[in-house]
C-alpha cells in the first residue's frame, strides 16, 4: 500500500462516542463517516465486533491520543503496530494523532502537551511521524492541539507545523476549534494563522465548540462540549475557499446533548458550507 495515495473524499462525519451511539445509528443517513478513538480499541480485540458493526455502515478513521510523536523518546513501535491492527480491522483510509507530546523522559502526562518549537525538534518529529506512517501503511495525519502554555522556542506554531510537514509526507488534521481557542488565548488572528499553514497538506478538519462558561484564569477552555461556534464555521469556509479537504468531522467530547438534533444541526451547517464552497 502506498501511504501517499490519493485519499477518498469522505464527506461530513461525526466523532463516535458511546453516548452518541443510538443517535448515530438512527440518523446514519446524515452521517458520511465516523472517527473512532483508537486507544479505546487497542488492547481488546473483543471490542472490534462493535467496530465491524459500525464499519458495515460507515467508513471509519482511527484517531489516536498516545503516539506522542513530539516526545524525545523513540517512537513506541508496539503502540504503532497496535494502531495499525485497529486500522486494518476497519480498513481505515487514514490514521491520525496529535502534534504534541504526552510523555517525555519517563514522565507520563496523559494529556496533549505542546512541543518545544525549534527547527531541530521539528525535523526530529517529522522523522518519527514518517516512520509511524511507514509502519501504519497508510496516510498519517497530525492534528494541531489547543495549548495554554507556550514554551520559549524559535518558531511560531504555524512555522513549527510547516517545518514538520516540510520534512515528512504526512498530512494535517486541522482542528479549527483549537485554532480559534489558541487565537483567543495567545492573541493572534486565526485567519492569518490558517493562511500561513501549508494548506495543501490539510486532509481533514475537526469542528467543535466550547460552552461559554469554560473559562479559567482568563483562558478560553478547549472542551469540545458545545455546538460548533459561528467563528469555527467561518474558519471552515475560509479554509475551503482555499483548499479542498477529504474529511470534515464534528467532534463532541463532553456534555452530549439529549437531543441528537443538536449534532445534526452541526453536520448540516458544515455540509451547507462545503456545498457553498463547491466541495462535496
Amino acid at each position: 500500500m502506498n501511504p501517499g495515495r490519493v485519499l477518498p473524499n469522505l464527506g461530513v462525519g461525526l466523532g463516535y462516542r458511546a453516548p452518541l451511539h443510538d443517535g448515530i445509528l438512527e440518523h446514519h443517513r446524515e452521517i458520511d463517516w465516523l472517527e473512532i478513538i483508537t486507544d479505546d480499541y487497542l488492547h481488546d480485540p473483543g471490542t472490534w465486533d462493535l467496530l465491524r458493526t459500525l464499519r458495515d455502515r460507515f467508513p471509519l478513521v482511527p484517531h489516536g491520543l498516545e503516539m506522542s510523536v513530539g516526545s524525545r523518546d523513540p517512537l513506541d513501535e508496539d503502540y504503532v503496530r497496535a494502531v495499525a491492527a485497529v486500522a486494518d480491522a476497519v480498513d481505515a483510509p487514514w490514521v491520525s494523532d496529535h502534534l504534541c507530546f504526552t510523555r517525555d523522559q519517563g514522565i507520563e502526562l496523559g494529556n496533549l502537551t505542546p512541543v518545544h518549537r525549534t527547527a531541530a525538534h521539528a525535523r526530529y518529529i517529522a522523522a518519527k511521524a514518517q516512520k509511524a506512517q511507514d509502519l501504519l501503511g497508510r496516510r498519517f495525519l497530525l492534528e494541531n492541539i489547543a495549548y495554554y502554555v507556550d514554551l520559549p522556542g524559535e518558531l511560531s506554531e504555524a512555522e513549527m507545523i510547516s517545518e514538520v510537514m516540510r520534512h515528512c509526507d504526512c498530512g494535517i488534521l486541522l482542528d479549527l476549534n483549537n485554532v480559534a481557542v489558541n487565537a483567543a488565548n495567545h492573541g493572534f488572528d486565526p485567519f492569518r494563522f490558517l493562511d500561513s499553514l501549508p494548506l495543501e497538506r490539510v486532509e481533514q478538519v475537526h469542528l467543535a465548540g466550547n460552552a461559554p462558561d469554560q473559562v479559567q484564569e482568563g483562558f478560553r477552555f478547549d472542551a469540545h462540549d458545545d455546538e460548533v461556534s459561528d467563528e469555527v464555521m467561518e474558519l471552515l469556509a475560509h479554509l475551503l475557499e482555499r483548499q479542498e479537504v477529504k474529511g470534515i468531522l464534528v467532534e463532541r467530547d463532553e456534555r452530549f446533548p439529549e437531543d441528537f438534533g443538536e449534532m445534526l444541526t452541526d453536520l448540516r451547517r458544515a455540509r451547507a458550507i462545503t456545498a457553498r464552497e463547491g466541495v462535496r
Partner: protein
Amino acid sequence: MSEATPQELLAKLLTDPRALAELRQNPDACAARYGLPAQEVRRLSTAGMPGLRVAASVTRWKNLSAVMGSLPATLALCQAVVDDDTIVGEVLAHVRMTTPRGVVSAGERLGELASRHAGDARRSVIQDVVRYETLSYEIREHAAQGQPDPGRGPSLGACVRAVTFGCPVAEVQRRILAGRPFEDLRERTTHYLVSVRPGGRMRVHRIPEALRDLLGLCDGSRPVTVLSHRLGMPTDRVEQALAKVRALGVEIRTGPAA
C-alpha cells in the same frame, strides 16, 4: 538527547507543584538546568504562570479522570489520605493509563501510597480493593496473549477467574464509592467468580467455597472423574455445578470425556 531539555521542564512543571514553585522562586536556575534563555524563562515564570497553572490543572484533571474511570475505589482510598498533587506526582506521572499493564501498575502504586499513609488497620482492605479493581485489566492482558489449547478436562475461559479475597470486596467497593463505612466487612473471606466482557465490563458472582475449590482445579489438566475424586464429590454433582456456572453465561471449556 540525554541532557535535560525544555520539554522535560514542562513535563515536570505540569506534574509536580514543587517544580512550579521552584520556577517561580528561581527562574534563572531553571533556565540554566534546562538549557533555555534566562530572559524567556523569567517571562514563563511571570506572564506564563497563569497558562502553566491552567495546563497543570487540565493535566491533573485528565489523569485523575482516567483513574476515576478504571480504579475508582482505589483512588477514593488514596484521596482519603493524600492530596491530588501527591497522587499525580508520585504515581500517575509514572504510569501509562492507556494500557492494561499501565492500569495494573497504577493500581499497585496507588495501593502502596494509600497503605503507607492509612495505617495497618486498612492495609489488607486496600490490597483487596486494588486487586479487585485491577483484576479485569490483568485478565484482559492475559487473554490477549491467546487461549491455551483445551486440555483433557474442564477449564475456565480465558476471561474467567475464580478468586478469593479477605473481605466481601465487591460490597466494600460499593460502600467506598457511596462514601459509607466499610470497616465492619473486614476479615471475612469471600469467593467470587469473575468474567470480563469485551470492553472490560466485569461480571461478578459471589460463590461458595466448595465451588471455588472446584473451579480452582479446572485448569484443563483434570477430567471430571479426577476432579470428582480430588474433591470427594460425585461425578454428576461436579457436572451439575459446572452446568450451573455455564448457565450464568460464564465460559467453561470442556475437555474430551474421560
